[in-house]
């Protein structure tokens, strides 16, 4: 449980240390990619808690979602439509749903363990 958190912190530290900056016009893509990745991560945690976790689904979903979101944003820029908003909306909604499910599962676990 602590390992993913450690990974997150390590990733942040590496990112800060390498001092990489991407051009401002690409920050849109990166932000949506982050959103997609977060969505996948929470989806994975939820699946894990619901015991329907599948490695292939998780890993493929992670990269596929990132690519899809970035390409959607790219398409939106070239069509002149803010298509990335669609991705933001979809991922945002799913993020909230996943977190809600995780919270409920954790709550039930906690209450059931408290009853015991």
């Amino acid at each position, binding site marked *: *449980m602590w*390992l*993913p*958190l*450690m*990974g*997150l*912190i*390590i*990733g*942040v*530290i*590496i*990112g*800060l240390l390498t*001092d*990489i*900056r*991407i051009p*401002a016009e690409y*920050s849109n893509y*990166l*932000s949506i*990619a*982050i959103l997609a*990745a*977060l969505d*996948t*991560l929470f989806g*994975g*945690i939820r699946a*894990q808690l619901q015991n329907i*976790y599948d*490695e292939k689904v*998780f*890993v493929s979903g*992670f990269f596929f979602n990132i690519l899809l979101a970035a390409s959607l944003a790219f398409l939106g820029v070239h069509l002149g439509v803010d298509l990335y908003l669609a991705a933001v909306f979809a991922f945002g909604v799913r993020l909230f749903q996943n977190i809600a499910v995780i919270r409920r599962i954790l709550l039930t676990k906690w209450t059931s363990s408290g009853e015991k």
Partner: protein
Amino acid sequence: MGSQKNVYFTITASIIGFMVAIQFQTVSEPVVRDTRDTWELRNDLMSEKEIESELLQEIQTFEDTLAKYEDEREQSKGKLLKETLNELKNEAGMTDVSGPGITLTIRPIINEIGREVQMAYISPSLLQRLLNELNMYGAKYVSIDEQRVISTTVIRDIGTVTKIDGHSLNRLPIVIKVITEDEEKAERLFKRMEISPVVEDFNMDSLKVELSNPEENITIPGYKDPIRIRYMEPADNGVGGDG
């Protein structure tokens, strides 16, 4: 929780962390403090102004080009026609013209007693003779009492009044303006008219013609009424004309 699962989660989380860090760094650019002194600021201002003037010049160039294009378009379509129309109008006497020439004033003669002879009548034939004389000696544009004389002008008696294109010539003095090709010709015309027998003929009708010295700039008004041509049709090419 299997260890393989944890590894995946860890890798994913670290990737996310990496991306978040990059995004964070990109979005929050460090604030650079402005430490330029007055002279550096002045230099910067100078260079910016140079850029501004360059840009303004560019705008000027483009506007010039635009104006040129518009001009060209107008030229190609309408200007030639307009020019031709103006030339034709000029030729027909529809436009005001000015140039060197002389003016003739027709007044009643003052008789021996010192009173003006009240006779405001100029016979059409006399006027026509005067016109012929003027045309013979190089008159280019003529107006009689501010009435432009063109090729279709009629001078005739209607009732007892001499009329030129419907305008009555019953109020003396009458001013005849003549424009010639150039000042030299105006001079020549003036000399010719000084010794012209027509002036004598006017005397017989109790009128006298006063000649003004050649002037550099005389303005003659254009013909005001529309020119009506009833009995005229274009000649066939090579039949009527000399083509």
